[in-house]
């Protein structure tokens, strides 16, 4: 693809049960600002069924055009082929998606198909001298990289919570239905979809997360984390040691090998702050840490650090919240 005719930003917006995920909407708002500054457009791509309502939400978030492609189950090869075809047709200069499992699955392949580069875990995008510059963590977030992509289009998977979503009801946009015939490209066939998790844990979209780590001590004490989360209308998170001790199911894991989160408020209870955990939550708006070891690395990144016994502090906090809420 030549540089000269490539313009506009294409955003793949992932949907679950016909609803667009916040990650995609946040990117649309950011893409809208980047595109508007260049006098270009944002093209959202939604794949699934019954997406008319989702398309309108995408327009409110910043899409000028929404392309709807009807497909049932997620199949990596189908989604990848659809995005590649649409990129070839619409010739964007930038393709973005949220860095969910699905986004990280298909974007590298799209980039490979188009012989271009793909940045992942992007925390910031700036437009500098006509190039998009992507800020990404490496070495588990210990250092950051600024990357540019020479190929066209640039492809990037964005970390959840990197950008703020703004929904503007008055915005208008065009909805386009595209037929993309790619069925015969499928070689990895989905034979079954199993909903094995008893509950859906939506850490990526949570505004408040209360997480517990090894310092909670035992399964019984970990219930305090759950109670506090309930009291602040938050979601329960956990570190890998807490998951491995089976205090809480794996779907709650925050960190490098779990979910990457960016709530407004993150309360870390009995978490020492290993890089693997911190890299998954450092994007949080306000971080409160409770730990009895004053040298714990979690205090380096916390906005408020409480050096104290988590098993004593948390019940008092729960009580306080309940007291005020009952007024």
């Amino acid at each position, binding site marked *: 693809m030549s540089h000269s005719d490539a313009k506009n930003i294409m955003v793949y917006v992932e949907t679950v049960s016909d609803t667009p995920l916040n990650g995609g909407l946040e990117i649309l708002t950011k893409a809208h600002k980047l595109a508007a500054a260049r006098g270009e457009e944002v093209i959202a791509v939604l794949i699934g069924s019954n997406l008319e309502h989702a398309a309108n939400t995408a327009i409110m978030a910043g899409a000028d055009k929404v392309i709807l492609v009807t497909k049932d189950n997620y199949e990596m090869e189908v989604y990848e082929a659809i995005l590649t075809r649409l990129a070839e047709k619409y010739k964007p200069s930038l393709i973005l998606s949220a860095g969910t499992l699905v986004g990280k699955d298909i974007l590298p392949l799209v980039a490979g198909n188009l012989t271009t580069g793909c940045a992942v875990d992007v925390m910031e995008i700036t437009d500098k001298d006509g190039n998009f510059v992507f800020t990404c963590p490496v070495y588990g977030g210990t*250092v950051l990289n600024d990357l540019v992509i020479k190929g066209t289009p640039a492809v990037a998977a964005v970390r959840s919570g990197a950008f703020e979503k703004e929904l503007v009801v008055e915005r208008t946009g065009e909805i386009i239905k595209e037929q993309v015939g790619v069925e015969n490209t499928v070689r990895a066939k989905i034979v079954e979809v*199993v909903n094995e998790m008893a509950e859906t844990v939506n850490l990526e979209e949570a505004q408040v997360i209360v997480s517990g780590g090894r310092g909670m001590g035992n399964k019984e004490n970990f219930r305090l984390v759950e109670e506090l989360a309930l009291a602040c209308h938050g979601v329960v998170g956990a570190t890998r040691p807490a998951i491995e001790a089976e205090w809480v199911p794996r779907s709650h894991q925050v960190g490098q090998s779990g979910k990457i989160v960016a709530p407004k408020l993150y309360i870390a209870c009995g978490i020492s702050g290993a890089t693997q955990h911190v890299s998954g939550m450092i994007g949080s708006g306000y971080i409160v840490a409770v730990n009895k070891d004053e040298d714990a690395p979690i205090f380096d990144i916390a906005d408020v650090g409480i050096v104290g016994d988590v098993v004593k502090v948390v019940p008092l906090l729960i009580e306080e919240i309940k007291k005020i809420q009952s007024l």
Partner: protein
Amino acid sequence: MKILVCIKQVPDSNKVEVDPVTGVLKRDGAASKMNPYDLYAIETALRIKEKTGGMVDVISMGPPQAMQVIKEAFSMGADHGTLLSDRRFGGADVLATSYTLAQGIKSMGEYDLILCGKQTTDGDTAQVGPEIAEWLNLPSVSNVVSIRMFEEDGITVDMDLPDEVEVAKVKFPCLLAVDKDIFQPRLPSYVKKTETKDRKIQILTLDDMTDQDELNYGLNGSPTQVQKIFPPETNDKKEIWNGSGDMLAKKLFDKVEELKFV
């Protein structure tokens, strides 16, 4: 069954710092190890071999010292090892790395199954495996958490998705990127280590590749370029409170309320 596992040598620790003056990455010593996620891929390969027979080969790319991780794979039970090593491969991003590995794999012959770990602990991109599959025109499945069924002509695996698990059936030859905990990796065996002490590791350079165009390798073949590397911002507005008791809980609640979180 011919199985190939892609492995990488990574720094032993994530404790890296940026020199504030030169902007160059200071690595904490030169200690390195096998990318932990690759151990799961090797284990998966060995388990399949134990059931079906055949052989397990490993491939890596990097400087000569990366032979270390191939030797480690030998002491776990891998049969042959190949290292792609050439100064012209240096500075490669995801695209150039996956291209080089794909070229290397092509020159090594046909494999029924290629296995990769889900990601490395240094670059963290989780892209190289799927892109190798694209270059080799093979079907691939990522986030594989378990193997359901193993048949003559294909394999059925569980693929982890955010809220569900998809069961995917894929025919050989194919590539799988396996998640951690698919199987518990075995420890290297001392006996195997001694046995394989003198086993030769095949070294391939650009001259052994079908595509001899230098521009497709290393820094030249990399559309992604690092402009700058820098440490994340530290939080200097932090507050530390000591003790535990009613007052502290109240103070925290006030703070959280002041910021309108609850």
